[in-house]
């Protein structure tokens, strides 16, 4: 249970505070309600590039990082398809420095051509390091446009292509800031050794004078119901075949989300999960197997991936996986197996409640989803999933026409060949 107090400023900024006396630190999290889904299809990767520019100096403070380090702080940020999230932790007595820094970069950035050029290079190197210069690194880049045709989830947060990053202009940076970086589009949360009234006072002092701007209404195209299975075969210079199957699911906010999440746990969370126990350890088809849900705010995906041992045919491997999925759709889970995945969720959740930074992040994220208090209802929602519900959700998800299947194959002397199977 994470207790919290909430306050809003007239300019639209929402503030959440959780007090935790067991730590000498304080964590500050600012979530901006903008992600890769809000990008222009010709400027993909922009929200993430912008995140880098947020550290390159603001209206009155040229050196964000150094000022924070000087106060003993440490920080980072991440961009997803849905949000851009900035977080820091510092000794609690220096909390006001965080308000000074964060309010100034919400007030305005010190844009410059030179800094934009440097950070474009940094992001291009990040693109290479994380996606292009790694075995299997581009699998995620291939999967998204296969699974989504219309919705902006069809591109990854790093961007569709390096050229999109290289072509970004300073004018576009300015417009993006104006549209998305203002109090009404942000949620501020603080957790740690702090007094809520003092946090609200600091919020009023530093953020109160920032002008409110109108938040643009999101008009994203809904992904149409998939009526036919999509398949892609690529060949790459990798040591083993990899098989990825991705299925459309509900959104994070849908009542079936918790059942969907538990399905991925039944498949591949822990050594006793079905894919690990049966297909990795017992039958030895795969050297590793994985399953996860994207948990996105618009309808997401449940992704299953496996690396095949030498001699296992990808077509055969796919049949084996389909059989496992049919079992989930065909019969209710035993009580004990369901209890097991719920217990794992409980441990993860309880550990996150001992971490002041995780608590600040969670409060902001659940507030974005409707209300910070939703965080404290999660355990109950998982607990309420019944074997019948789980089976029904599985039957809805694991159908042939709902799947996008990527065969990422070891090249047989042919380099970079791609075949789209109709």
């Amino acid at each position, binding site marked *: 249970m994470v207790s919290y107090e909430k306050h809003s400023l007239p300019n639209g900024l929402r503030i959440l505070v959780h007090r935790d006396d067991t*730590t000498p630190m304080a964590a500050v999290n600012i979530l901006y309600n903008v992600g890769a889904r809000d990008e222009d299809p010709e400027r993909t990767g922009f929200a993430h590039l912008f995140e880098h520019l947020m550290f390159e100096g603001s*209206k009155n403070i040229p050196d964000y990082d150094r000022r924070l380090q000087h106060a003993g702080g440490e920080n980072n940020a991440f961009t997803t398809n849905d949000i851009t999230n900035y977080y820091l932790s510092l000794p609690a007595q220096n909390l006001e420095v965080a308000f000074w820094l964060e309010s100034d970069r919400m007030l305005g950035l010190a844009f410059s051509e030179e800094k934009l050029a440097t950070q474009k290079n940094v992001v291009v*190197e990040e693109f290479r390091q994380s996606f292009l210069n790694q075995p299997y690194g581009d699998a995620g880049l291939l999967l998204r446009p296969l699974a989504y045709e219309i919705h902006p989830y069809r591109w990854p947060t790093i961007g569709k292509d390096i050229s999109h990053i290289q072509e970004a202009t300073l004018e576009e940076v300015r417009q993006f800031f104006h549209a998305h970086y203002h109090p009404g589009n942000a949620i501020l949360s603080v957790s740690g050794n702090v007094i809520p009234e003092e946090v609200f006072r600091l919020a009023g002092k530093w953020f109160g004078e920032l002008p409110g701007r109108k938040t643009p209404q999101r008009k994203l195209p809904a992904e149409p119901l998939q009526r036919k299975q999509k398949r892609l075969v690529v060949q790459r210079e990798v040591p083993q075949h990899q098989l990825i199957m991705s299925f459309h699911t509900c959104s994070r906010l849908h009542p079936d989300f918790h059942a969907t999440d538990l399905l991925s746990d039944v498949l591949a969370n*822990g050594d006793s999960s079905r894919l690990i*126990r049966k297909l990795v350890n017992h039958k030895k088809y795969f050297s590793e197997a994985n399953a996860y849900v994207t948990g996105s705010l618009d309808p997401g995906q449940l992704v299953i991936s496996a690396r095949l041992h030498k001699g296992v045919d990808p077509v055969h491997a796919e049949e084996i996986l389909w059989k496992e999925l049919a079992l989930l759709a065909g019969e209710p889970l035993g009580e004990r197996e369901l209890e097991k995945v719920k217990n794992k969720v409980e441990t993860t959740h309880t550990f996150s409640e*001992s971490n002041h930074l995780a608590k600040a992040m969670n409060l902001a994220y659940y507030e974005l989803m409707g209300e910070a208090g939703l965080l404290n209802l999660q355990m109950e929602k998982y607990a309420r999933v019944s074997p019948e519900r789980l089976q029904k959700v599985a039957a809805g998800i694991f159908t042939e026409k709902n799947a996008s299947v990527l065969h990422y194959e070891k090249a047989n002397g042919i380099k970079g060949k791609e075949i789209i199977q109709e």
Partner: protein
Amino acid sequence: MTDRSTPPAIRLTDSIPFIRPQSHLLDNGLTVCFLEGGSEDIMKIELVFLSGSYHQNDPLVAFATTKLLGAGTVKMSQEQISEMLDYHGASLQLNPQKDIVSVGIHLLGKHLRPLLGLLQEILLQPLFPAEELQTFLKNQQQIHIINQKKVQHLARTIFNELIYGEAHPYGYRVKTEDFEGMERESLLQFHRNWFRPANAFCIVSGHLPANTGKLLESCLGSGSWGASEVASPPVYPLISPGSRKVFLEVPGSLQSAIRIGKQLFNRTHPAYHRLKIANAMLGGYFGSRLMQNIRQDKGFTYGIGSNLVSLLRNGYFFISTQVGTGVRQAATNEIYKELHGLRTRPASHSELDTLRNYLSANFLRSFDGPFAQSERLKERLVFGLDFAHDEAYIKELLSVTPEQLMEVAGNYLHEDGMMEVVVGK
């Protein structure tokens, strides 16, 4: 309008919320330390055995022995063990290293009894069944083969071989064929020799149920768990290599991995604290000279850093980055410039002030809560140090001068003595 040109006043932390560990020596020779704290019903049990790959007779034996503790015991199959762990929402952290292996478990206090019983079972009675061993080796071999395609991974392993030599366990590079032909007898033997209470300590941290001490004693204090003497570890002489450079071309690379560094010493050396501060200034945090120059000014890389690694019998220093192949030479030149600068260009007042504040807060962060403190305690116990060693670091941090930092850099991080590995193009 609020005055935004003047930063709010800051205050350094003057006290560390140190939890004094409660230590007990069990009858069988196992030392147990309790670190109590935290408000949630969560805890961690970690056993550390003072033997790692340094102590093995053949490659990967320490690794396989540790990783396969849960692969089957006298009473339980691999499936039963993983089922029991997962059912109680727990997972094992099996972490084989060069000098030690660590076996940890995170759990909710309410499941302590069954999970301690399980921990006892897998620590005392593992069987390392042949079939599970073969499956494990085959899967690990695949991961190894994939790693051989990563420039960063290659640079790391080649660098270790370069500074320690392939005959030394610290320098040995695992080969693809090492995953073949291992017998379970080697694992049983490694377990028999080194997984002994007198060769270990245990740290229990978190919110501890009232009966924790008793339960632990009944499960891990057993006299039947090899109370006999532990053999003395093998001795491998350290070579002292000169300056050398290795370039490995990987056609088609988009980035080159660069690793520059040298053999040095560990945290028990008298110059360690000061050198650690100098290292932080060079590449130990985002505000460091390497990061500011090579990422933030030049845009050559997504990240660059330097580090001091403490091993039990030695230690080393390295700088590591991945850069676009087109700027590989330019980036390398800048790295050497910064190494040169570390011994010739004094820290400005503002640079040192920021470094001090950042590192002292980081030190505080490393004592934030029982789990963080258990990491610190582990480090002290492995190296035979006490809390006074930690306090000496803070003293050094508050008093060190720019001249002293240049001097220590000149003594130990001179650019002429470095080894260099580049993998890519």
